[in-house]
């Protein structure tokens, strides 16, 4: 092949590839506009819900996608009131809403924004990575965030989670990975350590997961002493029940060579575990408690990328999971 033929062939490839790329992108853009310009397919209402309610992220593919919405606690399948606040992950108490957000732009950024009861911004804090979990303390004075920090760099790609607790409207209490770690009664300093999934207990105490050396531990954290002390192992993403006696979490197992998580409950006083294997699907979420006997968690739909539903599951180990709120994610139970 002569140099000329090669040049012509290359130019032809550039033309074809360029056309295909552009056509695909334009097609994707117009179908995006079509999908996200339509009104929600579920019932909505204008009136904001003020009494006992479930606050969540609306995930229907429509003009409200990603909006924080709420339904009445006694009618979760009823009409939802959408706000104009968009979040990836949300938690709420009667006073405060914490919202983790991916902010698109020429460079994508991430943030935590705290809102008051009227939806006014209390403060916005830049986050170093992709939002994963957020939890408020029951009185709304502390907020925990877990983000996934992809240490993107030229020669290596590393990763770590960054989990932080802050005073709402105030400063951070430091990255939890730097807290003193006490496993099985011994202070340890492992290099591979990740902390995630905070759930608040009292004013200065909380529970979280620590992963190190391929094992996961449930730790009790002390904000004042800056310590994390293990109380059980094989517990991921804990969530403390409203009465403070039990921890809901996801139990890891191996299925088809991949991780599989099943909802489970640990009794803190007796150490008794109940794996709720009536849930056959893998649950990768920080579970919320609807009441002292019922769990809530989100599951993605297999056939519709981006759409999720919130399911409920009684902790008796016999009941089957039930669809609780459709087109929803990141549920938070608010009882003013």
């Amino acid at each position, binding site marked *: 092949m002569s140099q000329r033929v*090669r*040049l012509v*062939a*290359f130019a032809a*490839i*550039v033309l074809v*590839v*360029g056309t*295909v*790329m552009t056509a695909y*992108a334009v097609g*994707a*853009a117009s179908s*995006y506009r079509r999908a*996200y310009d339509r009104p929600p397919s579920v019932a909505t209402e204008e009136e904001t819900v003020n009494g006992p309610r479930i606050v969540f992220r609306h995930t229907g593919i429509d003009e409200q996608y990603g909006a924080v919405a709420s339904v009445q606690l006694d009618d979760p399948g009823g009409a939802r009131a959408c706000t104009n606040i968009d979040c*990836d992950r949300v938690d709420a108490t009667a006073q405060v809403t914490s919202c983790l957000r*991916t902010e*698109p*732009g*020429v*460079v*994508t*950024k991430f943030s935590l924004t705290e809102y008051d009861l009227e939806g006014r911004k209390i403060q916005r804090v*830049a*986050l*170093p*990575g*992709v939002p*994963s979990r957020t939890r408020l303390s029951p009185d709304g004075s502390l907020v925990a965030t877990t983000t*996934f*920090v*992809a*240490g*993107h*760099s*030229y*020669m*290596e*790609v*590393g*990763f*770590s*989670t*960054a989990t932080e607790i802050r005073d709402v409207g105030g400063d951070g209490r430091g*990255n939890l990975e*730097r807290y003193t770690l006490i496993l099985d009664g011994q202070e340890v*300093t*492992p*290099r*591979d*350590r*990740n902390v*995630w999934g905070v759930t608040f207990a009292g004013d200065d105490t909380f529970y979280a997961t620590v*992963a190190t050396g391929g094992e996961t531990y449930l730790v009790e954290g002390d904000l004042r002493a800056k310590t994390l002390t293990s109380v059980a192992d094989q517990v991921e993403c804990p969530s403390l029940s409203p009465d403070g006696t039990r921890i809901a979490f996801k139990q890891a197992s191996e299925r*088809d*060579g*991949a*991780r599989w998580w099943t909802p489970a409950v640990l009794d803190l006083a007796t150490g008794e575990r109940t794996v709720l294997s009536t849930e056959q699907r893998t649950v*990768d979420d920080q579970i919320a408690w609807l009441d002292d006997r019922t769990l809530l968690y989100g599951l993605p739909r297999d056939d519709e*990328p981006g759409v999720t539903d919130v399911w409920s599951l009684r902790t008796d180990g016999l009941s089957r999971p039930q669809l609780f709120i459709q087109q929803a994610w990141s549920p938070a139970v608010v009882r003013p």
Partner: protein
Amino acid sequence: MYITLSDRPATPVGHGDGRRRVAPVVVTLGLVSLVTDISSESVAAILPLYLTGVLGLSTIAYGFIDALYQGVSALVRIGGGWAADRSGHPKWVAFLGYGLSVVARFFLLFSTGLAAISAVISADRLGKGVRTAPRDAMISAATPPDRLGAAFGVHRTLDTIGAAIGPLLAFAILWWIPGSYLTVMVVSLGFAVLGVAMLGLLVPDRPPVTPRPQRAPVSWREVAQPSLVRLLVIAGALGLLTVGDGFIYLALLESGEFAAYWFPLLYVGTNVAYLSLAVPVGRLADRFGKATVVICGHVALLGAYAAAASAWDPTASTLLTLLLLGAFYAATDGVIAALAGQLVPAQVRASGIASAQTVVAVARMASAAGFGFLWFLLGPQQALVLVGALLLVALPVALGVARRIDVSAEVATR
């Protein structure tokens, strides 16, 4: 583009002399790397978002996959270098490596599970491992020894421009069409195809300037020249004291708000510093000795540790850290490849370059493991100070060895 990339002499002597330009094949290889890096970095930038946001996978699992394949890539490098020398066709070995990445990108469009995606990512990594040494050997073969530093500088500049454009392009697409990760992947596949087509059609298999010796089996004894062994020893030793930039960014994160706010952009800052310094530093390497410049690069690295650890002013120390990291890459990545290619006979050049790159990669992996330990034992700042102190002790010794390597490189050139 060709005019701005031509290697103009620093002094007025010999101006207008066409021989001082970088060989066209170096620029073409640079453009191949540029479009390929747009392809790979655009996907790499969105992958964490895609895995967690769309596929709903745990982020922990993602980090796990990633670490696993680092080692595989390092070992494949040696194989790529060996195959290039053995066959005498570095272009087609490199082509295989680029082609593997195209295939990986194609399958990425249909991958939904963690296992499938990790298989695709590992295929991409393998492709990168295979192609690097043969490509660098082609740059060496097309360039006279006294201009190798500049030639590698031009190549790495183009390469890094691609690495800087890729994430910006990906985020711009997501901004335009929120959530359309598939569009990013289609565009990434397109650029990968362009890269491989450019290599296949526009890069000659054998550069006409140097006559190739007869096809001969690769003898590792030929590769193990005393001066190359010295280079491997100091590159390996210094590699052990090289803290990955991921850790340095995380250390900056502890220092203040500025780094947290700009965190997603820090690596772009390093890339910009790297691409603007690669050519001038390469020219310095040609003039003052490549091994000496590699040592100077590690002085810049030491400065980056100091700036990241001190944090006297969050904004200034962050910017200074990125600049020094860029200078470190400019003085090491291409320069080590250029030097390794120069220290061994031409028929085992790719193997020589691959050995140096593998030693550096393995040493840095070991360093990451060790530094992670120090990080939690001492805290980020103190850990950086400790590694910096060790580097400070090692540098004068390394400089002595480096001077000897430069002298042998000078002799080998004559």
